[in-house]
């Protein structure tokens, strides 16, 4: 079971890193969201895995899972929504104001691969 969790977090991390290294805002935002999942599960897992032991006190039940990481991750999930929302509005503002959804401030992409829907960059984007 530990291997499943570890590898799942690993896959999400790898996918997140790959997408974060893309050039446009949208895949980067998706990548950051994937990294958020990975980090949240990682923090949660630091309490070690336990099944059928929810931290809800019951008479006669002795063993509970670790509640502390859960409390920390709960707020982290909600805060990550706020963070995503702020990043999205910034990306959106850049796109609406300058037709620019590159995460780069410098021209780094290959001009040969100009695609049809690529919008002109704002003149002062650099």
């Amino acid at each position, binding site marked *: 079971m530990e291997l499943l969790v570890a590898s799942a977090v690993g896959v999400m*991390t790898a996918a997140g890193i790959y997408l974060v*290294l893309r050039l446009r805002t949208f895949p980067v935002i998706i990548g950051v969201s994937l990294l958020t999942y990975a980090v949240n599960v990682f923090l949660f897992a630091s309490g070690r895995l336990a099944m059928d032991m929810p931290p809800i006190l019951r008479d006669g039940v002795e063993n509970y899972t670790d509640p502390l990481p859960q409390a920390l991750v709960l707020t982290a999930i*909600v805060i990550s929504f706020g963070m995503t929302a702020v990043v999205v509005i910034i990306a959106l503002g850049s796109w609406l104001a300058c037709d620019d959804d590159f995460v780069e401030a410098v021209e780094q992409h*290959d001009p040969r691969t100009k695609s049809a829907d690529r919008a002109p960059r704002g003149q002062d984007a650099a």
Partner: protein
Amino acid sequence: MSLFLIVALPFLGALLPGLMIQAGRQACFMATFLVTLLTAVGVAVHAPAVLSGEVITAQAEWLPGLGMNANFFLDPLGLMFAGLILGIGLLIIAYARKYLSRDDNMGEFFTYLLLFQGAMVGIVLCDNILMLLIFWELTSLSSFLLIGFWKHLPAGRQGARMALTVTGMGGLALIGGMLILGNIVGSYDLTVILENREAIQADPMYLPALILILLGCFTKSAQFPFHFWLPHAMAAPTPVSAYLHSATMVKAGLFILARMWPVLSGTDAWFWLVSGAGIITMALAAIIALFKDDLKALLAFSTVSQLGLITFLLGTGTGYAAMAAVFHILNHASFKAALFMTAGIVDHEAHTRDIPRLGGLRKLMPITFAIGTLAALSMAGIPFFNGFLSKEMFLEEAAHTKLFGSYYAVPVIATVGALFSAAYSFRFIVHTFLGPVRDDYPAKPHDPPTGMWLPPAILIVPVLLIGILPFLAEPFVKTVTYAVIGDAVEMPDAHLKLWHGLTPALYMSIIAVVGGLILLALYSPLARGWNAVPRPEAKPMFDAVIAAAVALAGRITHGLHNGSFTRYAAIMIVTIIALGAHAWMTGAFAGYTRAALDMTANAVAGWGMLVAATITLVIVHRNRLAALILMGIVGLMVSVGFNFFSAPDLALTQISVEVVTIILLLLALNFLPNRTPRETSGLRKTRDAVIALAGGGAVTALIYSMLRTDFAAESISQYHLDNSYKGGGGDNVVNVILVDFRGFDTFGEIIVLGIAALVIYALTEALLSSSVRARLLNRGYEERRAGDAHPVMMVVLTRVLLPIALMVGFYIFLRGHNEPGGGFIAGLVVAIAVVMQYMASGFAWAAKRQRYPYHGIIGAGVLIAGLTGIGAWFFGQPFLTSAFGYFRIPPMNEFELATAMGFDLGVFLAVVGAVMLSLESFSRLGRRSGEDAPEHAMDIDPSRDDDDDKTDGKGH
């Protein structure tokens, strides 16, 4: 008056000028003057006690763990400096009232002046070196603001920057030196440090500490080779020059030298460094001063020279010299401030302070002439003026000092310095005031209003009084001297008097005065010669050093920071992986200590879905809508996983956050292109894939080894499990942790969430008030539109669901303390229910029915949570201590009420408000002109005849 109040008054008073300027310049001036007067009175009432040997203290612990205490003490040395700062401050404020023109912002000026005054008073009264360093930096900052007060003058800005750079660097050095001293002694309290002379001087770190502290003092007091900033600081308004650069700030360095004298002085290093720098500065600056044509530049270099004289006296390490130093600090402050104010008057009335354009002002400005002459004669060291007495003592000390391996070096340098001092003093008088009246002044000079000449005239009183009757000052000077030297050396038995007999000092004095007159007579040929000789200029050198530093910093920064986010991300990720790999290689891993849980078929299936969705997501990420759907699957599987591993609260939170996040990204995708173009090369993709796989592999290994090993230290979780019911009155430990054990964290988090939502709102407002608005309005539709914007099925369904969803939210909220649920989850559920209305019935329809602004809901949430926490204070408990009890209202079962519920209500409201404000802001972008609230509650109503124009008011 408490010392705390004395130090705080100027800072508090600094708030006044900016306000009082609204009531006029006179009110602004009076406020500043009274604040300073009050502070001065506060110091003065302590004077009798201090002079009789008592030390006034005020102590408060601030950060005792760091050794940082707000301790202040007032001894005779502090009293003298505080008296100078506040006394001359009063005169300067009165002078500035008339000096500043109507174009100058007087409120701003006096604000800075009071800030500076407070920082200076803080330095001289402070008994904790950490506090002292803070005040020290404050003087650098406030003097920066004052020097650059005339922002329109490039010279002012450059001078201010140079002063800040030099004194700021010195300040850093001083911090280092003081911290070393504190470490040696084991206390940061000045009075404790002062008692540890032997320990400090025996310590191997004594020399580094000394050099660092001297760097701080020499930069502040403009000693060679850091003297160059002071003349450039003369671009400041004259009251600033008179106050900061003659009487107070530049003496802060001397103050530290005097303050640290008992523990630092007496060693060879101290003697060589301090006396050497002092005597060189004294002579060099005097020579330069003579050939300066700008009145203020002449005075600036003369100040540097006089400060060098005092530094030399502090460096020789004898009690006699310390007494001379104290005496000269006093004398110099009086005559130099008067001279600066005279120069300011000349500049103000003649509209120039260029000496070749002046002369003959004696008849036109008789009062100014009298003041300037008396002060300059004191500076020249003429008998019956106070400057003569302390200069005699200086020459006496110089005659007995052996430095640079020779008995003659110091007396000769000192005589040269004194000679040039006399010469520039005479030049100040002769070239400005004497000679024929000219007819080509830029303005018609005449004596200024009383308010301007009275302050320097008042300063002339002590110049003459002490000069003629020196014994008046003797008790005070001796008391202060004792405060400086303590018991480190014997008190000198010398007396302040005019006639010491035919001493070497007298001969040196005579040589200086006569030589000065001769130099002045030969001034024209000398100046021609001086100007013909090439000299190193400090400013170009300084500028070159700064330019080189900026270029170097620029190369490093631009090399690392070229604007490519992808590059930073790659560098950061690779660095983290490398650090992890390093830790893995070098660390010791004891092996697995926990047995692995068995895999179940359900878990493997869930894992398969998550991994498949993630990999597909990477492959198809160019199709943004598909990527979003796949991300939703990943999120769902994560929440299922939380539930599987005994975290029902997390599962509920994750799934509801997932919904709002997807809605948010859908709203964003409404504007962004639907596809990501193909742009990176295959090589680049391979590189990124390698980094990604390395990162993923590393994380897998890390988590796997973590999951299979036990805690390194005992977990605090058991405490929470044990006390959740007893202390927090709840069975759901996660919720009790959130609202009770770690309530303060949660309080901070809802505030962060609220701020994030407000940021989004503000950014949206900014976008909508820019050109973006017009573009949004003119935006064409790229895709075919749905024929029915508000499908009737969805409208009906969401409206029916709304009360049910609200009830579910309420239920989740109420049970949160004992079952999975709580404010966070309830808030998200309610937010989703409301968002559904926006989606189904349109923005305008929903906004029309939204009675309370979402900002207000966020604010109410934070307020309620805060008030619940504050409530604990009324019962003498710390913030956020919760209480609970069990109640029974007859027809119902016994139920529990906990104050934590009030806190959770605050969390709930803040979450609802924040989520809704964010989503609403996004949808505002999509609102086009012409979209009004629909007339009817639903677009399609079978019972209504749509051709009929009449409105029935339903839904309004």
